């Protein structure tokens, strides 16, 4: 009995917590179907029916489909580059016990602390000189920035994998690429999931780097589209009847992906960070 009673309280606390957590998202949803006046005057009221005109206007304003595709392209290619390059370097850094490995680990770890603001201007002008102030350049920048944390995660994980499997494969005559693709990568799956999800979330939502590289070119990422839609429509104020639906539209893909893959994502974000 004494154990039953607190459980009710625990459930109550958690349910209240969950409702509070979901409130901004629900709030966003209901206000995406209301006019500016309705939003400002009765923010908590439900919309008068299923009114999709503001959402439709926002989709048009932020060029949803091309923005979505280019954001997806940047995210997928960027994450792939990060995964392949950082797992390869981390593997070698763990296995080859030389000074170079130590120095590299130090460099990567220390660079995790560099704030983006400390290098953004030199970075942009350097890439411009290389003719890479464009989407491919943006992907390369992400790959470079994502490297440090990913190497750090892979490095920590590979340390805990015994060498014996690789050694057996090498003795069997496998070449280095076969060892990497058939032995190492499958073992690294949990960390790869972590690296992919953490970097994917960052690339998808990032604002500052696309802002500096792409700016207001016709084809831009979702976050940028929302920003410019807001900047151009409420020149100085907030056109809430555009901001709400535009933000909603930009987060729907993430929520859909999360609903489909929630188990994998939630396991993924911690698997690499915490050794089980």
């Amino acid at each position: 009995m004494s154990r039953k009673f607190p459980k009710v309280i625990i459930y109550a606390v958690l349910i209240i917590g969950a409702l509070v957590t979901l409130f901004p998202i629900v709030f966003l949803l209901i206000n995406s179907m209301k006019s500016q006046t309705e939003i400002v005057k009765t923010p908590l009221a439900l919309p008068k029916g299923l009114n999709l005109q503001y959402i439709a206007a926002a989709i048009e304003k932020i060029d949803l489909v091309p923005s979505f595709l280019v954001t997806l392209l940047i995210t997928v290619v960027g994450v792939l580059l990060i995964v392949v390059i950082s797992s390869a370097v981390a593997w070698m850094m763990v296995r080859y016990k030389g000074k170079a490995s130590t120095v590299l680990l130090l460099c990567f770890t220390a660079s995790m602390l560099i704030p983006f603001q400390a290098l953004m201007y030199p970075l942009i002008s350097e890439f411009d000189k290389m003719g890479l102030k464009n989407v491919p350049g943006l992907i390369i920048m992400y790959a470079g920035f994502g490297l440090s944390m990913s190497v750090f995660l892979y490095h920590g994980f590979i340390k805990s994998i015994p060498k014996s499997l690789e050694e057996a494969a090498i003795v069997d005559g496998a070449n280095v690429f076969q060892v990497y693709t058939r032995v190492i990568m499958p073992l690294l799956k949990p960390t790869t999931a972590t690296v992919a999800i953490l970097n994917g979330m960052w690339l998808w939502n990032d604002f500052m780097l696309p802002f500096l590289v792409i700016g207001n070119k016709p084809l831009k990422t979702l976050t940028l589209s929302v920003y410019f839609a807001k900047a151009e429509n409420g020149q100085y104020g907030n056109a809430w009847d555009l901001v709400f639906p535009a933000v909603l539209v930009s987060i729907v893909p993430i929520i859909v992906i999360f609903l489909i893959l929630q188990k994998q994502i939630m396991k993924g974000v911690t698997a690499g960070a915490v050794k089980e």
Partner: protein
Amino acid sequence: MSISSKAKKAIAGGAAIACLLSVAACSSSSSDANSLYIFNGKSEIGAALEQLAQDYQDETGVQVKVFSAGSGQNVTEIMNTEMTSQDPPVIWATTDLLSWGPSGGDFIEDLSQTQNQELKQLLDEIPDSARITGPDDETFAIPITLEGYGYIVNTNMLRDLFNLDDAAQLVEDLRKCSYDDFRSFTDAVDDFIKGQSSTVTVNGHEYTTAAQKTDLTGSLTGVFVEAGAETWTYANHMINLPLNTVYSTFSDAVYGDADRIEDAKSAIVKEMEVVEYNTSHAAGEDGPNPRGSSFVDSTTGSYDYSLQLFADNKGLFYKQGSWIYPNLKKIGASNLETLDIIPIKMPFEQSDIKVEGRTPETFNTTIPVMPSYWMINKQAGEQQKKNAEDFIVWLYSSERGKQFLNDECGFIVYNDLDMRNENILNDAVRYYLDQGDTLSNPFDAAPGSWLVDVGDDMKQQYMVQAEWDPSTYAQFADKEIAHWKELKASLTGE
């Protein structure tokens, strides 16, 4: 195993897409000489400018690239990265003459040295108040529009308030009257809103407020419409008036002696009195909009909200500029046809004014008129600079160019004031231009973060306070004056 082969395919695919994209990016780049790159800071004309560029390209074969940066503080970052790029903008604009002009990076072409006779002609026609000159009399820019600001008023509201057949005479009197007349006028309007009728004399004519409220006048909840969250509405535009007592033009404020700002102290104190009056008579949705937290919050104090209040006739005067017409139209304001602009009256005395030729009457009978303008990047290639000059000449001489400026953008074309468009507020600006010298825009020359800091100080120390202590105005003026000098010194004293 499965991951790796998928990964390989994906990488190959990704690389292919990346290559395609970079090829596409290269082919569309305009680094070849026969091109023109325009960096547009007025995002609202972005779409029309794209179309114009396309038409110009079809007509002349010159490739024109347009970049519209949006608005807000981040524009600086975009412009800077564009200016350092391999293919920098050729037509652009800045208000920061010290950094970009001859004393700094030397990025601004002196247009007066042009070989293009038609461009020379265009330069000669720029009115003095809109001319942007360098320290050695260079001409730095060509205005693409002239904008003016003051108290925007719905003349039908004036008519109903005073039971007139026609508000023309009253408008004329308000344009000409003194500060004291204007103050008794606004007091009378305030009384009317509170339900009392009274008689005032404006510029020698008597006016009596109507005994009964009509549908229109009944909607008034305050004399002024204010946007408390937007610091630029009370910092930039209001402090520009005291700045006009010491600096005659924008260029004068850029290159003139920084110590002259000290003479603006008494004018700043008087400006604060005016701001106090206006913000304490502000209109709200269902009644007065008193200063305090909700006065400055980003919803009820926003620019958009204030536009709506004015469109709904909640206030008589709206301190804004001719640029608001398209925005009012967009929200379906019903008072579009009857708008006019009245000067922002200031209780200045002759001793407050240091600019030769300006008197208290100047301030009370005209409005500040300022240009939006284009510059040519001095460090662009010769061919590109020539393309830029040709384009500007074409813009002002061709039918298509004029159609763009006048009809599509709703601009005032500075060398052809007779051209008319639907923006009725432009007519008001033209009226003041026709009357002679207007006030200028020295506030655009404020160093670094000065305007933002002034705005923050006003917001944080005053706009959130229900009551202001007039004895603090002098202190406020001293602080901002010292800040101006300090920022100015840090810019020039390297």
